[in-house]
């Protein structure tokens, strides 16, 4: 594999995945799916970091990707706990129902 030739393709792939994720956050209503879309966005960014790291021959990109993975895991822990909490109060899992304050 030649990193230089594949590079535009990798960047395009990452941008594509990122867009799917962003679009999903905007149109999906189930908080768990929204959350998955956010994860997709973060992992698309990881592709950018790793491929730039390879392209530039620098380690910073690879290390950054590790940091993102760790932080994403921490965010999932808190996120799923919150979603469970909302569910246990007997709510439907739909982000459109979270409109207590705009009523």
């Amino acid at each position, binding site marked *: 594999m030649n990193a230089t030739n594949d590079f535009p393709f990798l960047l395009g792939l990452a941008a594509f995945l*990122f867009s799917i*994720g*962003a679009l999903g*956050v905007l149109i999906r209503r189930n*908080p768990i799916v*929204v*959350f998955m879309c*956010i994860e997709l*966005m*973060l992992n*698309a*960014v990881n592709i*950018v*970091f790793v491929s*730039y790291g390879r*392209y*530039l021959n*620098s380690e*910073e*990109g690879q*290390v*950054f990707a590790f*940091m*993102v993975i760790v*932080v994403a895991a*921490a*965010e999932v822990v*808190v*996120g799923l706990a*919150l*979603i469970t*909490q*909302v569910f246990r*109060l007997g*709510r439907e899992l739909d*982000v459109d129902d*979270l*409109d*207590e*304050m*705009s009523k």
Partner: protein
Amino acid sequence: MLAVIPPLVTPSGVDILGILPEVILAGGFVALLMLDLVTSQAHRGRLAAFALVAVAASFGSTVWGWFDAGTPHTVYSGSFAYDRFGLFINAIILISTALVLMISPQYLNRRGLHYGEYYSLILAAATGMMILAGASSLMVIFLAIELLSIALYILSGFSRTEPRSHEAAMKYLLLGGFASGFLLFGMALIYGETGHTQLAQIAAALQNAGNSVDPLLMAGIALLFVGLAFKISAAPFHTWTPDVYQGAPTSVTTFMSVTTKVAAFATLIRVFTYTLGETTVYDRWKIIVYFVAIASMVVGNVAALRQNSVKRLLGYSGIAQAGYILIGVVVLSPLGTIASLYYLAAYAVTNIGAFAVITIMAGRGEDMDSYDSLRGLAFRRPYVAAAMSLFLLSLGGFPPTAGFFAKFFVFAAAIHANQVPLALWGIATSAVSVFYYLRVALLMYTRPTADQPVYNWSRTSFAGGAVLVFTGAGTLVLGIFVTLVWTIAMAAQHGILPAGVI
């Protein structure tokens, strides 16, 4: 002038002195987690006292650092800046945290939310904010933002049985994660196009690039700005703010409305003014920041007109204030930075005061944040009403309060940089803001009629009174003895890292 790149050296033990305030606070956070296990329900107040001790120790080391950081330098191979700018921001964050810790126990007890985790999470968030203030590498900026955000997600959902609180936490979490995605994509593109993650090296790479600006780099800068604009709640990235501020427990709102904004502005100034200030790049991002600043001033002030909850009102007012502080970033001058710093100090003391009043007034099981619940406050609690009026006047920008000089300085910085339209937008929108601030103030001095409910406001505890006295005095000191804080802000701007860009 050329950007100064710090030499790459292996971290030594001495480097820890550069992050001592953060280390102390992080230690307090871990210790509190342990102490919570051995503290009984009745003695949870002691945890607050312990947290206050940790904050005081951290503040002490910040002050020591202020005198020690005469020659600013980076520690840990350039990833953390040890300069007076970071320490100034640290001081604002630590004072705000201490004030919030003082009003918290009474409020949490009354609302039945007194759990020990509260204090550890507050300290964790404050640690993240302080790291953010000093961060001088994209990686550290990202980690610090997530440290403070994750702690705040939990805190805003702290009222476990209340749907409003869940809704706040959920919105904050989902939109915060969304914004983190943009922030990260921006960082990835900046890293890719400059080849570096450290701010000083990015600044140098931009200077070497000369007049050619890569579109991917500009996309990266724009995305990074979106991510940070979310944290400072600037329009059009502000939609979460009123809901989260209203739904979160009031003591948490007090904390995050002030400290998050201060910390995020610190990194915004460090990144945009002092790293991306290179002329060719600046000419492009200036346009985005310019419009976000105007949009925030307009949206914040206009939307605040039709609110009926004080927490929401202060949320929208915070959006507008973000617009004013952004003026200090757009103008790209040392004067602008000093004006922003002054504004942040004024904003912190005034906003903590205003939210503290709402926190102190909270009833058993419910927040007293509707306009109705403030009617006639002045006749039952004259001192609290007087303090609240002072804060509202300061937010509106009346002399002789902190808010007047804060606004005056940012507008002066705009005019000094030949950005007169920006100053005019600012002045016009402040004029609008006077209307809604005074409306709340007048309500407190209106006697309720017979058919209106009489609210049972809580008694002000000693700690609550002390917070109001401190913030009230601070609001007046920043409005009367202006040179005092101005001199400190000037020293903070002088020697900010990365050096040599503007």
